[in-house]
Every structure is written in C-alpha cells, then in structure tokens.
C-alpha cells in the first residue's frame, strides 16, 4: 500500500516538467517517503521554517499575479468535475499561502512600498511557482502544500501519507469536553484515540483533560505516528500523550477494562466510492485512512468490540461515521450485540446537519 503510493508520487515528480529535481525541497519529500518506518523524519510546515530566502517585492508580486490568474481561470470547473474548490476558495488559499511564506506579508498588499525592496520568505520564489502548480495541476491539497492544517485552535503539521483532519471531527473534542466537565473521574482517566493520524483528536482531548488525564494515540501507519509525534511535541504534550504503532486494539492490550474514554475517526468510506472521490482526497490522501471496506463499516464494527472490551464502567466513547446510514447501523449493532455493556447511545449531527457521530457509555 505504502509502496504504491510512493511510486505514484515518484513518477509524477519525474513527469512534471516544471519540477527541478535539484531543488532541495523535492529531494527532501522524496527521501522522507522512501525512508523506513523507524527513521521517518516529519516535514517541517512552511510557516515554521526560518525566513532565510529573500526576494524582490516586485518578483513576489509577479508570482502573486500569476498565481491569482491561474486561480481565477479555474472558475467552477473543479466544482463541476468532482465538487472540488472554486476560484474563490483558491484565492483565499493563496492569501493564506502568502501568510505562511512571507515573513512580513502585510507589505505585499499595501499600495505604498518600493518594488525593489526585499522581502524575507520561508521558501524560495521558484518553489512557490512549483508548489502552486502542484496545487492547481495535480490538485494536491492546500494543506500538503503548506504542510499544516488549522484545526480547532491548533495548527497541526500534515504531509502526504497522513489524513488531513476534517472540520467535522472538531466536534468530537467538544463532545468529550462536555462529558469531562461533568465528570472529574473521566477527566483524570486514560483515553485512547485509535487511528490518530496527525494526532488531532489525541491533542485536542489531551488539552481538555485535567491533571493525571492521559491519551494513548495509536495508528497502523508509521508516517502518521511520526507526524503525530511531531505535533504532540509542538504542543509540549509528551507527558500527557503516548503514541503507539499497530493495528486498532492490538497495541492497547494492557488497557483492557481500564480506559476512561475511547474515540476514533476510523476509515469509513465504502470501497467502491474511493475511485470517484474529489481529486484532492482520492489522488493524495492515504487510502488506508479512508477505505472502510465494502460498506465502510469494517473498522467501526471492530471498534464497537473495542469499546466493550477496553472501557471501564462509566467510560465514554465517540465514533465518527459516514452519515445517517452508518450511524443507524452502528447503533442497531450495539443494541443487538452489546446491550449488556454499552448504553445511553446517541447520534449527533455535524454542522452541515448530517448525522455524523455515535456516542455512548459503558455500563
């Protein structure tokens, strides 16, 4: 799985005429995805790199105009083909791109200012051309371009091989925050985030737990574990969050019946829908993070067993699903197979009104 992904990237890199392979950043991204699981070095997001490049304001404006024109030329063609971004969204991304790259980005848009003035940047101007082309021509997700995603009040590092956390998932942290605010015991207990990806949920929850509260984040993907580790460190939560590599419950054998809470946003897209996903998702995000088997329920059903097995009495769980159908199937499954252990089942909608989460408690 991981190898095919790498090969795909590699060939695109070779085929794209605009990429100069001698550019350091290209070799960096190559080496990191080829290296073995133990020595994975997470990429540093652009906004955290030192501003060691310097460019004439004029050249930066030229690039900006070029990039803006491309964004405008897209119109709504991506929307029509696969519900992708329109030019309004692309223009906003461009603005954020500049915020991340240019040290003093306000100067770029003020009318006054000498065009020969130098601006300090965190990436080389040629790299900017290269990256924006990747955004438009390859439909590489904006978050992989800048290497980060703003999620809740966090800025999480992401890179190819790790799912970009979704806005919907933020709500799980709110649900947990509600629960622990009413229950000191859960607030100081051990929680688990299975399939932690970038570590978003683990970090979000780690920050709402009280003294003594801990989170174990686990993932099958070594890239995910490395990136999650990087993010945990950035928020100085090493003491509160532990990361383990392995499949679902396997790395948590020592925690049976001990967890105060269990959350997961597992892969839940039905396999047959994978080929028709929006290009940013289908072509760039890891399949292992998306594909939930024939009806998308493989991991979710497995996690029900996990909740039964791992939670202590009174423990809380929250799972994200594909929508109303999966929510209902999941609740039905729990009612008919787990009613001895799981109770107070509830379905929660996201802000788009789609029934998205199943929550409940261990008896």
């Amino acid at each position, binding site marked *: 799985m991981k190898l095919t992904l790498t090969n795909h990237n590699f060939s695109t890199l070779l085929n794209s005429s605009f990429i100069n392979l001698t550019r350091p950043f290209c070799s960096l991204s190559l080496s990191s995805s080829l290296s073995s699981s133990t020595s994975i070095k997470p990429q540093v997001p652009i906004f955290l790199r030192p501003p060691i490049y310097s460019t004439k304001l004029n050249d930066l404006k030229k690039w900006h105009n070029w990039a803006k024109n491309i964004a405008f030329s897209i119109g709504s063609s991506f929307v029509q083909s696969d519900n992708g971004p329109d030019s309004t*969204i692309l223009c906003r*991304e461009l603005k954020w791109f500049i915020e991340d790259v240019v040290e003093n980005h306000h100067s770029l848009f003020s009318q006054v200012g000498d065009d020969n003035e130098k601006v300090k940047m965190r990436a080389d101007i040629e790299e900017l051309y290269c990256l924006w082309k990747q955004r438009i021509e390859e439909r590489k997700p904006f978050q992989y371009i800048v290497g980060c995603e703003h999620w809740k009040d966090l800025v999480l590092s992401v890179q190819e091989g790790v799912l970009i956390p979704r806005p919907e998932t933020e709500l799980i942290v709110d649900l947990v925050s509600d629960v622990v605010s009413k229950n000191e015991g859960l607030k100081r207990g051990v929680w688990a985030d299975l399939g932690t990806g970038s570590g978003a949920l683990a970090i979000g929850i780690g920050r709402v737990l009280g003294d003594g509260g801990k989170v174990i984040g686990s993932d099958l993907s070594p890239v995910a574990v490395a990136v999650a580790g990087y993010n945990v460190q950035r928020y100085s939560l090493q003491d509160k969050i532990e990361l383990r590599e392995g499949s679902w419950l396997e790395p948590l054998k020592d925690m049976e019946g001990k967890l105060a809470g269990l959350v997961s946003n597992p892969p839940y897209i039905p396999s047959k829908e994978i080929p028709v996903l929006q290009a940013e*998702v289908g072509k760039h995000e890891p399949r292992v*993070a998306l594909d939930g088997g024939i009806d998308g329920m493989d991991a979710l059903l497995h996690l029900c067993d996990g909740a039964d097995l791992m939670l202590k009495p009174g423990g809380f769980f929250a799972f994200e699903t*594909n929508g109303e159908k999966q929510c209902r199937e999941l609740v039905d499954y729990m009612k008919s197979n787990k009613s001895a252990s799981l109770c107070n089942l509830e379905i929660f909608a996201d802000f788009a009104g*789609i029934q998205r989460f199943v929550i409940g408690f261990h008896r």
Partner: protein
Amino acid sequence: MSYYFLRRRSLRITTTTFSSFLSKLVGNLSDSPSPTLFSCRHLSHALPFFSSTWLSRDAYSHGLLSPTQARFWASQPAAAEHSTSDGLTIQGILAKNWPILDENDSDWKSHASAIAQSIHLIKRRLQWKKLKVRLDMLSAQLNKEDLWDDPVRAGKINREHGSLLGKMKEVNGLERELLDDIEMIKLAREENDSELELESMKALLNMRVNAKEKELEALLADEQDSRSCYIEVQAGAGGTESMDWASMIMQMYKSWAQRRGYKVTVMEEMPGEIAGIKRATIKVDGEFAFGYAKAEIGVHRLVRISPFDSNKRRHTSFAAVAVIPNLGDESSSVQINESDLRIERFRASGAGGQHVNTTESAVKITHIPTGVTATCQNERSQHQNKASAMAVLQSRLNQIEMARQAQLNAQHTQSLTDITWGSQIRSYVLHPYRMVKDLRTNYEVSDPDSVLEGDLDGFIMSYLSASLDKNEDDA
C-alpha cells in the same frame, strides 16, 4: 517670585469650591441611615484625597475609588460659576466678543476669547445641560442603598458616572485655568512684572492650542466612541452594477482604516456572481474606530457610466453601510444561551467528512429568538470561524439591546442603532461631472478618486461637528 505668590492667591477659588463640597459631604453623611459606622469608615478612607488640591478625576478613571466611596463623591454637583477677582466670567468673556487674532499675536484678549469660544463649543458638543441632568440622575442612583444588589448594573452606572464626571471636571478645569491666567496677566501688568506677563501669555497660548484639540476630542464623547467596530456593506438592488459599487465602498473603508493606522480583518464576504460583493463585513480595530465610522451609516449612491453596460449608459447604484461598536467581552453585553443558537456549516454540500477536503469551513450562527445571524469565513479552522462569528453575533445582539434601552430611557447619547438603510447620506458622481457630496452637511469635494481611496476624514469630521453643533442653545 511673585509668580508663586500669585498662584497661591488664585487658589482661593479652588478652596471656596472645596469647602462647599466638604459641607455637602458632611450634610450627606448625616442623612445616612447608620451614620456612625458608615461615616467613620468612609471619611477616613476619603481623607487622603482631601489633602490634594481637588478631587482628581483620575481617581475615578484609575479605579482608586471604591464604589461605596464613589457614592459620596457622586453627590458633589458641578461647581458654581467661577470668576476672577474683578468679576470676569467665561460668559462675560464671550459677551465681550473680543476679536480673535492670529495665535502669534500676543494679545491676551484674543487668546482668552478664542479659548472661551473653544470651551463654549466643547460644552455644546458634550451637550452640557443634558450631561448635567444625566450626571445628577446617575448620582442619585449611586446613592441608593440597593445599588450593588445588581453589580452589573451598578458597575455600568458607576462607569458612566465616572466618565461624565471626568468630562465635567475637565471643562470646569479649563474654565478655572483661563480665569487664573487672566488674573495673573492683570496682576503682572499692575505690578509691572514683564517676566511674569510673558510667562502667563505663554500659558494662555498653550491653553488656546490645547483647547482647540479638545474641541475635536469632544466630537467623540459618546460612551461607545472609543471602541473598535464592525463595518458592514450591502449592495442595493440592481445586480452586478451595485455589487461592484458595494465592493468599491468596502475598499474605501479598508483604505481609510489603514490610513488611520487601524487593523482591518475581513469577517465575511459574499462575492457577486460576475463582479463585486453582495455583502461583506470587516472588523476595524483601534481607538475611536467606532466614533469616526459611525458617521458613515446610511445609503451611499453612485452615478457613473457603467463598465458593465456595453451601451455605455449612465447608471445609478446604491450600497448600504452599517457600523456596529465592538463591546468586547464586557459584563454589560447580552447573555447568549447556547441552546438558543443554531450553528450551520455555511455552503455545505455533499457527504462531508472524509469524502471532502476543503479549506472552506465557514459557519453561520443564528440566534433563534431574534433571528439575528452572523457568519465568518476568513479563519482557517471551523472552530475559529465559529468563535469569530460568535463575536459578531454578540456585537449585533448588544447593538439591538442598546437600541432598546436607548428607546426606553431616551438617553442623551445619540443612538445609532436603527441601521438607517432607508436614508441616503452621500452621493458620488463620476459622470457627467465629478463630485462627492454629503447630503446631510452639504460638505463636498470635486475629486471622487481621493475619496474612494479612503480620504474620508473631511466628510466624517464635518458630519460629526454638524450633528453635535446644530443644537445652539444646548450649552
């Protein structure tokens, strides 16, 4: 040497005022229900203040006074009219109508006349009579025993009282200073002390400049004026034409705000299908942003040859502007119940979740009981968009509440509340002639470009002064 002697002499006025203040205070104490306990404690607290020349208004604004102490200070009404030893008063100076000469002309009468006129204007702008009535009313409330049963309301009353009293003190201070300086010049002449005369003349000139500045400050004397604000622009009927105009107006405010050194953040923006914007909201952060921007509320009209009309016809477009003060998380803001809110993903479509990767995470919050909504889309996470939209919603609800209260007790502050979408305030003509004219003040300029590039201060100042100065007999 004689300078110091004189200074002491002129202090006499202050002392008189002070003793009447003291007798008031004592009188007040004897009225108090539990005189012993109450008066002793507070008198001893209050005494250190007595030793300073006058109750400093800073004691209020810097929070040196406790609410209960404030109760006593509050009962001190404005001082009686001051006069020099030979009976000259501010009214007297005004009545003399001494000609006002250039600042460089060392003529004390000219300076005095200019200062007296500034003071007069400042009083008018502060709506002096209403201010006194309001201050008395607030003082009466501060003296009520049950005041602190409702700490939020008490805090509000205390704050407003402090700020009004401060303004009153400042003006009274100006009046006293003017009379003191005049007295000193007269004395210097009597005693042929040319050094002192020069010095006093300098003091008078300083004061003249200072008073002129205060005239401007008095334009922004409302409680909310110093706040940051939100500016909202909405395109009128007429499709692309007006949407383009709305975005030109928005650009004008962005540039204006930047010129003034304010920070501008785009909160929401609904682009038009072909060009321009349907509506947009920006946040303008900085001192007095609201005080100035409130002058822009209303409908703005544009006449030009349309760039969207292939027949090159003349078109008229409209855009409406609303301005809302940002009250921050002050205790006086309206309480919002979480259960009264509906939060929706803005422009959501499709399956969502893992299916979709989008950087668009705007949310729309509806306050169900009032139907008021707010949207924010400029932030990079849904969480932050929600937080910013909540702030906008809070400001809108506060605004509505302020309007309601202003109607209830017909407050002296000019309330801005009903967003006057109906009333046209300014006309921008690009063709057949070029002119921008304010329909409220008739202020006009013949260079629309400079105005659209943000040179708005002329319009704003003339409107603010006109709206405050029109009431002649208020002072």
